[in-house]
């Protein structure tokens, strides 16, 4: 399990299209959006949490392709499926690796991207906090989507179509946390629900995901 995690990290960091790409996309997306809107910072402030959150969802979506694809192509996924380590544990390792390499960097970057939208420091920190609490759910749901579309090859449209509806609750609660914090409202309930979605997804999704991987391997 530990070895798996280390292997996942190394592979993602060393792969050419891996680590930096999602971050670069996130940056590019957030820079692009204001060009389509008004230039006044006051007009950018209120949609900013939604934009930064959407950017995060899209970047995580982009990073999903690589979770299983490489392992499937070189055959190590079949190897992993037959080792004594349960496939569920393999999937958990992949989820964690995806979150750490694709989700966490976004949270840090969001603090700086918030400047482009003229957000005050405390709101930028809240965006970061709510992203840290919400992106695990995106990774978990995304890994499930990736394992569903495993047999379909690279670059299919199935993955986003399946994953996007599953992101809705996280997106709603994540932006709610930021918006309520910015208005000085009580956020405890919303924040706790957001965290619980992440934790529950991480706890339960590996089973669904491993089932899908197994199915895809069996019939392929």
């Amino acid at each position, binding site marked *: 399990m530990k070895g798996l995690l280390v292997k996942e990290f190394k592979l993602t960091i060393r792969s050419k299209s891996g680590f930096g790409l999602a971050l670069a996309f996130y940056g590019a997306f957030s820079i692009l959006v204001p060009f389509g809107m008004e230039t006044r910072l006051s007009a950018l402030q209120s949609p900013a949490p939604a934009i930064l959150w959407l950017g995060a969802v899209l970047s995580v979506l982009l990073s999903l392709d690589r979770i299983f694809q490489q392992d499937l192509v070189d055959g190590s996924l079949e190897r992993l499926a037959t080792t004594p380590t349960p496939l569920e544990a393999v999937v958990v390792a992949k989820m964690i690796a995806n979150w750490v390499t694709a989700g966490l960097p976004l949270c840090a970057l969001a603090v700086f991207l918030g400047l482009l939208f003229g957000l005050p420091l405390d709101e930028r920190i809240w965006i970061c906090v709510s992203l840290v609490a919400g992106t695990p759910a995106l990774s978990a749901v995304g890994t499930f989507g990736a394992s569903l579309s495993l047999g379909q090859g690279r670059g299919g449209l199935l993955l986003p179509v*399946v994953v996007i*509806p*599953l992101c*809705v609750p996280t997106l*709603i609660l994540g932006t709610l946390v930021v918006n309520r914090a910015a208005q000085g409202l009580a956020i405890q309930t919303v924040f706790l629900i957001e965290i619980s979605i992440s934790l529950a997804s991480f706890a339960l999704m590996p089973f669904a995901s491993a089932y899908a991987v197994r*199915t895809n391997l069996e019939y392929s």
Partner: protein
Amino acid sequence: MSFWKFANPNRFNRLVDRLVPYCTVLAVILLAVGIAWGFFLTPDDYRQGSTVKIIYLHVPSAMMAINIWIMMLAASLIWLVRRHRVSSLAAKAAAPVGAFMTAIALITGAIWGKTMWGTWWAWDPRLASFLILFAFYLAYVALWTTYEDRESASDLSAMLCLVGSVFALLSRYAVNIWSQGLHQPATLSLDKETNIHDVFYFPLLASIAGFALVSLTIVLVRTRTEIRKRKIEILHCQELSP
């Protein structure tokens, strides 16, 4: 006689053959009665005028949209636990019908909303959760079409249905926190005193029964078609590899 007897595709098809004529006739009668009664024989609402009559399409289609998803969930569970092929094919056959019902509910709702609220669309919890349900139907259908020719499609889509149900329910409550409601509360409920008036209630019941039977008939026929399609495929394979 057990319910599981119809897990046998041949028995199921014979049952469908026998049921479909009755179901079709009854569905047409009930729909005609419900809608004609509702449209022409009920009084106008004192505030909404005659626009209230779209309720005879809106409420039944919305109920069917949810019920068909629940039916798909049950069928997927049966497939995952007992591996009856008919059940998996029934879930597949039901999905487009459910998506269609969701679309009808959204469109009639938009038309009603335009006249009553002055807007085609509002980000109300009920409206939003129906849109999400529609997205889940699309995802489910997309998964089936992508894996059309593969054995794994039944398993994968059943799993998506399971996970999707949890997340659809989650979204339903998440949107409640997120936005204030514009939509009126439930029209029909068994435990409340302020239900819709009897004048509207009985034609509405007929219309709901009609929608339910129409959905049932279409799902049965589509399932029968899926079974036959599967049989043709098998025959085809046998011919190719003697």
